[in-house]
């Protein structure tokens, strides 16, 4: 069924493109939101991923599943987009800090979830990507390997290191899960 839709979309049928979009958009948007943490960025990434996928549909050979191919494009778009966002935020951060200096009160100690969220956000890109794809989105290591173009073993190793880093970052909360 999806093969037919892909063939029709290749021929320029907008209805087929819409059907493919409907079938995959939820997962792509959810993934984009996981990485971006904002609706605006997630929309941009999702739209960009579909636009690129449709314009490169002739490159899809059917060697892998369409969803894998689409997620490969989406992850690439998301990671590239997040790198740009990170660079921009780093440039803007000193100004924001200077503006809030002396006026901010000491926040209450964040709870475990907030601390965990901060620790995930602070993970190196490779670890964070594998961690979110595996633990948040439920990808298998094989799928992660296909999407990122790495061996499943590499994915497993990166996930292990990501968890170790998070454990270190959350050492203060060790008693809560012990």
């Amino acid at each position: 069924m999806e093969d037919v839709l892909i063939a029709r979309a290749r021929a320029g049928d907008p209805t087929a493109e819409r059907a493919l979009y409907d079938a995959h958009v939820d997962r792509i948007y959810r993934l984009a939101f996981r990485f971006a943490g904002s609706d605006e960025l997630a929309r941009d990434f999702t739209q960009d991923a579909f636009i690129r996928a449709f314009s490169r549909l002739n490159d899809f050979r059917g060697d892998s599943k369409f969803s894998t191919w689409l997620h490969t494009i989406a992850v690439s778009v998301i990671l590239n987009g997040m790198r740009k966002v990170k660079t921009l935020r780093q440039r803007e951060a000193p100004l924001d800090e200077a503006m809030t200096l002396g006026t901010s009160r000491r926040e209450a100690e964040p709870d475990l979830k907030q601390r965990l969220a901060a620790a995930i956000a602070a993970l190196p890109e490779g670890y964070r990507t594998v961690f979110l794809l595996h633990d948040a989105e439920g990808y298998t290591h094989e799928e992660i390997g296909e999407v990122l173009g790495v061996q499943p073993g590499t994915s497993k190793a990166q996930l292990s290191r990501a968890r170790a880093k998070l454990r270190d970052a959350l050492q203060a909360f060790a008693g809560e899960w012990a």
Partner: protein
Amino acid sequence: MTDDDRFDELLQEAARDYNTAPGTPRAEMWAAIAAARGKAQAEIAPEAHAGAPVAVRVVPLYSRHRRVLGWVAGLAATLLVGIVIGRQMTLASAPDARIATSAASPAAASSSADDPGKLGTGPAFPAGGGPKLAAAETGSAGSAAPNGDRHAARETRAAFAGLAVADDATRGGAGSAARGAAREAALPYRVAAMQHLLTTEALLVSLRSDVRAGRRDTTIAGWAGELLGTTRMLMDSPAGRDPQLKQLLEDLELVLAQISRLPGARGEAADLGLIDDAVRHRQIMTRLRALSPDT
């Protein structure tokens, strides 16, 4: 269960709550995707703008006229070359031709001096003129047209066929060398005149169809202006020696001058009516069609 296992469970649970997406804004994102796709496709191929209202591709009139103007320019160039060659050859062969004419056919020579056009329709027609006349009488244009139109067509065809003959006759008609040279000299004018009449017919048909459809092509005046110039050049060339073709060219000159002066984007109905009257009254379309190469 070890601490590590419990920690991993907690991590997975926390990860599922990490940056949880709200509902997917499907429609809004699709609208943006469709717009971007439409724009990209329009840039690649404006006529195949999928996903958006597709405009019917219309070949711009100016491009059609540009092609026609190219033909007109080529026609004018051919005509100029023909005039130059013709004058050269006339100067070179005139004395011999006069001598040959007076010796071999005094009647023809005297007729040519009085009215070269009559020679074209007279009994002294060479083989080339005969079939054309026959075709005029039995052609489809003639059979469908009223008597007046048929007569006009016959006259025009005869006049056109007589172009070469008139040239032959004025040069004497005797002596195969002189006749061959005269035919060669007349050929560029015949070709140029034929092409010009066809192009002019195309303009008149285009104008008529525009008028009937309620359209107004603003470039048609410029097109008519170009054709008007060619018409005047033909009138001054050996093609204009034939009185009947000359008459047709004069009628065309009048009509083309009227069209070339059509005002602005919307021609006045009265102007268009006058032009239409002139075309019909002078049977211009019939006379033009009588000269079509396929008849």
